[in-house]
């Protein structure tokens, strides 16, 4: 009985704390990289109710008497990292029945309890675009997720837009991954790939026009078609196309389709971006890059290069980063920026790429991507310079809650690995072997 009472009391306390204003928390004495402005030495980050209340230093940020202070001397604070392309949570989209399946939602497949989400938290990632594979011209709808803690169901990770709709994009791919030698419904050449996509967008236009023409007369509406409804969202710019593309000519094909149908695009991987950086910039297409330690692995990535970041920066294209986890490991996402910097990308653009560029690509520039008052309190605490191999992610915070703490033995195990760190049957590792299979490939 006593225990029940205690539980009830605790529950009341919790409920109360959610309803009432939380006490503000100030992280003080840190080197703060707000992205929205120059780094602040001896900085203060003030958060309350899951949002950033203030960013500055002792001269500019006034702390009220009820504030909880956390000393972060010697540490660096920057916005949580945004991974624009990942396969954590074992997402499975389209199946082998056809090359274009916009009706398929990975919402219906992601395992919110997957340990891969915790690995991403350990890498400082706070927002992620989880995508289905690339073994299809279109493998379905993607999900933008916040890496909140203790998630059991996918709903616990969703992000809602101002209309109350959960956010996500759509995955397209070209090049060799969607091509299947067996024929059937799948393309056998690059030209056929483009033709099949073009065909669907033309159908989507017709579908959209029929819906428009029907007006309020429901009898004139075309039969409901989830694939067409989704592509209409794409045509109307409500759903961003994340286009997996590697070779220079494939990149230009993606841009050509974008121009023809006017959809909004984010180029993903762009292994040969260094060859067509000016064209990408001219098309105003954002590009998200990945850093792979050696060229090849398949023919269309023969000339992938660490210098893609530098080339895109020089051309003036908006450039972000992604893990493509399990192609690269979410736990050392920052390393990708280090390698881009090694090949000539500027430190500022690297850090911007991890944060604001990703936010823009996911339509969340008003909510995340920088440390500014009013934005979500998504940030990471680092032991040192973000682009040093010796630096560790010490803490990851999502919406004002600490979701990773390196001093917690369980979190430490996830961060460094070892017995019990991963599920032996983690699909994330298996995903690699599905490049040409029904599951669709990554990278």
């Amino acid at each position, binding site marked *: 009985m006593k225990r029940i009472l205690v539980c009830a009391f605790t529950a009341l306390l919790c409920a109360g704390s959610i309803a009432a204003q939380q006490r503000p928390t100030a992280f003080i004495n840190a080197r703060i990289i707000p992205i929205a402005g120059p780094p602040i030495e001896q900085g203060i980050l003030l958060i309350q109710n899951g949002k950033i209340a203030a960013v500055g230093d002792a001269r500019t940020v006034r702390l009220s008497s009820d504030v909880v202070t956390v000393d972060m001397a010697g540490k660096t604070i920057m916005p949580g990292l945004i991974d624009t392309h990942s396969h954590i949570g074992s997402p499975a989209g389209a199946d082998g029945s056809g090359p274009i399946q916009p009706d398929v939602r990975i919402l219906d497949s992601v395992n919110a309890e997957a340990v891969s989400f915790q690995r991403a938290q350990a890498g400082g990632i706070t927002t992620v675009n989880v995508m289905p594979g690339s073994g299809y011209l279109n493998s379905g709808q993607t999900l933008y997720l916040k890496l909140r803690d203790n998630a059991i169901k996918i709903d616990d990770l969703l992000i809602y837009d101002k209309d109350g709709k959960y956010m996500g994009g759509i995955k397209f791919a070209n090049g060799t991954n969607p091509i299947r030698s067996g024929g059937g419904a799948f393309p056998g050449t690059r030209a056929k790939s483009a033709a099949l996509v073009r065909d669907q967008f033309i159908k989507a236009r017709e579908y959209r026009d029929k819906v428009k023409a029907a007006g309020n007369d429901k009898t004139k509406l075309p039969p409901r078609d989830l694939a067409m409804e989704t592509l209409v969202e794409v045509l109307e710019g409500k759903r961003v196309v994340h286009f997996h593309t590697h070779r220079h000519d494939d990149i230009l094909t993606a841009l050509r389709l974008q121009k023809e149908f006017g959809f909004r695009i984010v180029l993903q991987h762009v292994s040969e971006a260094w060859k067509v950086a000016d064209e990408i910039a001219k098309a105003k297409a954002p590009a998200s890059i990945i850093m792979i330690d050696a060229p090849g692995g398949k023919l269309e990535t023969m000339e992938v290069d660490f210098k893609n970041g530098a080339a895109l920066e020089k051309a003036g294209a908006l450039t972000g980063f992604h893990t493509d986890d399990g192609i690269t490991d979410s736990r050392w996402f920052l390393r990708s920026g280090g390698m881009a910097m090694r090949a000539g990308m500027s430190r500022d653009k690297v850090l911007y790429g991890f944060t604001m560029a990703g936010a823009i690509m996911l339509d969340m520039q008003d909510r995340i991507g920088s440390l500014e008052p009013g934005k979500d309190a998504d940030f990471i605490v680092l032991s040192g310079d973000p682009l040093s*191999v010796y630096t560790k992610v010490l803490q990851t915070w999502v919406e004002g809650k600490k979701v990773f703490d390196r001093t917690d033995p369980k979190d430490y195990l996830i961060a460094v690995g070892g017995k019990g760190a991963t599920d032996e049957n983690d699909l994330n590792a298996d995903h690699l072997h599905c490049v040409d299979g029904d599951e669709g490939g990554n990278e």
Partner: protein
Amino acid sequence: MKRTISLRAISLLATVAFLMQAAFGQLAVKGDTVWTMTGEPITNGVVLIRDGKIERVGTAAQVQIPAGYRTVTAKVITPGLIDAHTVIGLNGYLNQPHDQMALDASGTFQPELRATDAYDPEERLVEWVRGYGVTTIHTGHQPSALSPGQTMIAKTWGKTVEDATLVPTAMVAVVLGQAANAGAGRSPGTRGKQAAMLRAELIKAQENLAKKEPPKDLRSEIMMRVAKGDVRLLVTAHKVQDIMTALRLAKEFNLKMVLDGASEAPLIVNEIKAAGIPVIVHATMARAGGDTASLSLETAAKLKAAGIPVALQSGYEGYVPKTRIILFEAAMAAANGLGVRDALATVTIDAAKILGLDTRIGSIAQGKDADIALYDGDPFEFATHCTGTIINGQLVSEIVR
């Protein structure tokens, strides 16, 4: 006319002689920091190279650079890096059937397959790792069958496999665990069967050794060399039960053995140490899953702390990156418990010791092969570049990478 020709010939000869001297002659390498791996790093060090060998090492105050030596300068100098286990040269970067030669799928036990018959010294991945300071690789058949074949040790420079090779048959590769299962109803299909098959082969080899006229077929010959301890077994094993099987076999048959991968080795350091078996640890950033679920950034640090000889490897990748870079793998290990000095050792002198070549490579010391890597900062930092690679006294790479 005749005179012109002879003059031309003389001038050509002179040019060739000059080029030869530049290529194989004298070189002085100056470094703000020189990691010799024989002691404390030298500040403001100079390394003199003559005829492919290291002539002298010391501080700039101690070592005068003689006239006629070409001088190369770098912020940091290390011995040429050694990748203690890879498959490059047998497997290529394109990942197409024609350039993947590290596994023959027709048999599960083929210790007679020689790596030298497959090694392509001009494979792009060899050039790729050379550009990051890698000068020696222990390469061979990939760990995807009970015995996929032999391994070899080569310099990452040389036009032919004969030019490049240091040790044609270094070890015989053996795999225990899921990766060794043949699949499709063939043997081995279980861990027990894997060990039984190996035992049968080793018993046969012991019996052959006792024969007055031992069989001369290739498999018997190489297995007899293994049974005699002339050639070491390189046993890829990750799970505790697989590592213990390896140790058991080593003891039963008195084998010379090197453990490979060994992600769960930190759980049984006493047993491994007692067996006196060195470990070539998995790539630090390798992907975890299945038998490798326990991979850790700290595996090498934990084994080193327990007093077990360790080297690092880039390993085998089925997809991307088609090779990992031992420099980057060591960097992650350095940042995760191993420290800079010990991490460097795992890819230089300690790797040389495990490969049995420490009298020739692995440190910057008088008389050793002049294999040196040049960097414009801390070799392990993301933003540092490898600015040059010297192999056998030749500056073979000057690409800033």
